[in-house]
């Protein structure tokens, strides 16, 4: 907050990160939008291949044009305010997540508790998805909202403790400092459990792949059952944006930030983000769905203890080093 408000107080914590003006947020949002389009194109190709056909690269553009011409569906006694907030704020939340991710040496928002900030934003998705399900005043979409919350109770705590591991090793909650602490050895390599659970969490808060039962066909599309036209386009873009933001945040947290040979830091951040995003998109059709009614036990009896042991190992190593 210090830089934004221009108040006397704290200096930037990590000298290796330069804070750029708020005007650059436009570029950050543009990059995020670019990642959304790229992910949607890749998904189009993969889904075309899954059905046996060639092409698919242009599928997201055709779909966007179709949705923009479609009439808005209205339902009886819908809570339009909450419904629209739920759908539209997914992209905003993703942009706020990206705000704390340093692009090489530049960052927009050098918050000293950036890791917590990301966590707060991903919890906001709980509210937004449920509100989208609630607002339509339709039984199927509300069931979808509850399915998401059921998943949320299972994945959120493991995700939180997975984010704790890099913060302990870097002895900082500042995202730039975490990226700077991985000289030579990426956190993804010696904290594989935390990295895996983090990626699972990214898929979960994007309602993606194994965590898609909230949107599945057996409840007529779930949360997005009544979404149509521009609303549906914005909702889908928001999901891709969350996926992209999760991939971008993994780069400073687990993949060494902008470190890499030859290319400059910002290019490495983008390359790593794109690779991770492609992996997340690809995995969509490769994993079975987690049933919302049984995932809670998986989260609390398998993932949570595994991540806690990981945190313990990281803490012991950190104490041993320090």
């Amino acid at each position, binding site marked *: 907050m210090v830089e934004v*408000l221009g108040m006397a*107080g704290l200096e930037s914590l990590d000298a290796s990160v330069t804070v750029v003006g708020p005007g650059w947020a436009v570029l950050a949002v543009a990059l995020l939008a670019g990642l959304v389009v790229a992910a949607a194109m890749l998904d189009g190709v993969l889904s075309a291949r899954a059905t046996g056909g060639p092409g698919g690269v242009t599928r997201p553009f055709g779909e966007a044009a179709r949705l923009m011409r479609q009439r808005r569906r209205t339902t009886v006694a819908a809570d339009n305010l909450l419904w629209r907030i739920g759908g539209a704020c997914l992209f905003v939340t993703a942009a706020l997540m990206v705000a704390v991710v340093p692009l090489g040496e530049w960052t927009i928002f050098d918050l000293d508790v950036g890791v*917590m900030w990301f966590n707060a934003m991903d919890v906001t998705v709980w509210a937004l998805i449920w509100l989208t399900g609630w607002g339509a005043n339709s039984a199927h979409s509300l069931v979808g909202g509850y399915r998401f*919350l059921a998943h949320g109770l299972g994945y*959120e705590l493991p995700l939180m403790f997975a984010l704790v591991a890099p913060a302990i090793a870097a002895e900082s909650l500042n995202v730039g400092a975490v990226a700077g602490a991985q000289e030579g050895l990426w956190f993804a390599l010696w904290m594989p459990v935390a990295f895996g659970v983090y990626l699972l969490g990214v898929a979960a808060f994007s309602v993606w792949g194994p965590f898609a039962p909230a949107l599945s066909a057996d409840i007529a599309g779930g949360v997005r059952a009544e979404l149509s036209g521009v609303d549906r386009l914005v909702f889908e873009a928001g999901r891709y944006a969350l996926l992209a933001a999760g991939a971008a945040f993994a780069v400073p947290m687990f993949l060494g930030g902008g470190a890499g040979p030859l290319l400059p830091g910002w290019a490495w951040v983008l390359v790593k983000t794109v690779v991770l995003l492609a992996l997340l998109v690809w995995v969509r059709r490769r994993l079975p769905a987690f*049933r919302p009614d049984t995932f809670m*036990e998986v989260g609390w009896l398998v993932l949570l203890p595994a991540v806690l042991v990981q945190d313990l190992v990281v803490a012991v190593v950190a104490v041993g080093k320090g």
Partner: protein
Amino acid sequence: MRVITDIGFWGLGVVAVAAGAAVFYVDSMARATYALAVSFIAVGVQVLFLQQNYVGVVTILMMVMEMAIMAVYMVMFMGMNPALVPMSMVHSNKAALGVAAATFLFLAAGILLVDWPERTGSPPPDVTRALGEALMGPKMLVMAVISPVMVATIVAAVVLAAHRTRYDRFGDDLKRHTPDDAQPGGVGR
């Protein structure tokens, strides 16, 4: 810059109070719950203005999560839905209004009349690190006390809320290998 900060701070304060009032004014369970969430977010950002970044972000994180769960409880336990059947869901409304107004006037008078002391000491260079070091150092007893209290709360809450005992789950002689639950688990049963 000072003016912008002031306007932002007061604006957030108005949002926090107005959203708080909306909790008891709107006739939709979801809107009431999320109005409270908005009030908490506004206060969280105000705490960020007061330089306590960790406390502010934790407030936002916890409260948004809690309100997402709260909404489920609202739908579950609000037996009579005021949105479907408009009805008054309050008792002793006038007395409550009077008490609230009197409380505000009393507090406001105190706030404005008391001669507040000068600021003592200066903020630590890294507020978040200072909090962590306080919790892990001189104030560790606080965390050491909160932890068992939280565990006790979890146990007490489950005992109160769960109606099935271990005899229901594992049989009268407690010899059933896998528990007999209405809700299937995800790990091997």
